């Protein structure tokens, strides 16, 4: 690690990761309490695989479904925030390397970001 910018970037990344995990854990917990209060007396059915309900399988679907009436979707929002935390970290690094005029690492970071966006946004 060289110089001043790298160290600033390290601190910023550290704060970002910590905040992301805390917020997503809080949302998952909130959704979990809601979920157990409504579905607490139902039987769990994870022995056979049916797949999560269709609307909880995409970002847009989860956002549309989330609300006080759909606790599973609230949990899913928390989990998606968690998945987005490392993506935000990569985006942050990209800005950091850009500000430091480090062209090689701007290119390398962009490649990682493109792969992540492809994974999360493209239909599979």
């Amino acid at each position: 690690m060289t110089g001043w910018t790298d160290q600033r970037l390290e601190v910023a990344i550290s704060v970002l990761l910590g905040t992301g995990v805390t917020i997503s854990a809080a949302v998952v917990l909130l959704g979990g309490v809601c979920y157990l209060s409504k579905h607490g007396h139902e039987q769990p059915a994870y022995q056979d695989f049916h797949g999560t309900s269709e609307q909880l399988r995409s970002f847009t679907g989860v956002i549309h479904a989330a609300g006080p009436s759909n606790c599973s979707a609230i949990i899913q929002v928390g989990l998606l925030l968690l998945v987005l935390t490392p993506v935000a970290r990569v985006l942050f690094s990209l800005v950091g390397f850009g500000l430091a005029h480090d062209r090689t690492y701007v290119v390398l970071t962009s490649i990682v970001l493109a792969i992540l966006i492809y994974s999360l946004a493209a239909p599979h």
Partner: protein
Amino acid sequence: MTNLEFTPLVFGISAVAGCLGALTGLGGGVVVTPALTVLLGVDIRYAMGASLVSVIATSSGAAAAYVREGYSNIRIGMFLEIATTLGALTGAFLATRTPTSILSVIFGLVLIHAAWQGSRSHPADRTTKQRDDPLALRLKFNGSYPTDAGTQKYRVGHVKTGFGLMFGAGTLSGLLGIGSGAMKVIAMDQAMHIPFKVSTTTSNFMIGVTAAASAGVYLSKGYIEPGLAMPVMLGVLAGSLLGARQLIGAKVRVLRWIFGGVVGLMAVEMILTGLKGKI
């Protein structure tokens, strides 16, 4: 069993897995999936989805501390993440096309390796004797890290070999929904001759991004089930935070042996179930 009983049980199992995973350095994800499938009969795909998100939580949580302390090498991590994310996408696609019985057998084999890796202490740091890898110089990999004897500098070798191994580590991560930290550490510590402490913390830094690359595929295939992933993620996170805090002063050697034994037993169970085609 109702959800009101099932959820705390899963939380407890995940917390133990997360705590032991942090204490032994194996990571919680590699233990939570066999625990859910072997002990509770959960379908391996749901278990993998829950494990994958918990892996993102623990690695991001721990990375927040390590990056600040100056152990992780962000440049090495960033570069190698190209390999791990490509591998993770490949692995996740493979996972959706591989019969679960075969996944179970592969998982068992990876577990046996993890148990073996976790039950021995790590070898001494190697230092690169040969001339610098020009690629490492060009990518500004050489760095320094804090030790008891002050700031220690290190040089990095065999970048291409490390990159190739990282693709493998990413594939395994996407295929099984694990962090595959052990293989990432091997690539950096053994192949690239990066100091062990820098290797483990940089590996941990990369695990979240690697797992996020498979998460899109897992999500769209319906592997991430909120009712199950909720207690797993919260449990593993709580357990690993507790484990990391207990790390200093714990009888790690005894723990490694016990943990290695338990993981070994679960590995055998997963291989046998897979071979019988029960999962």
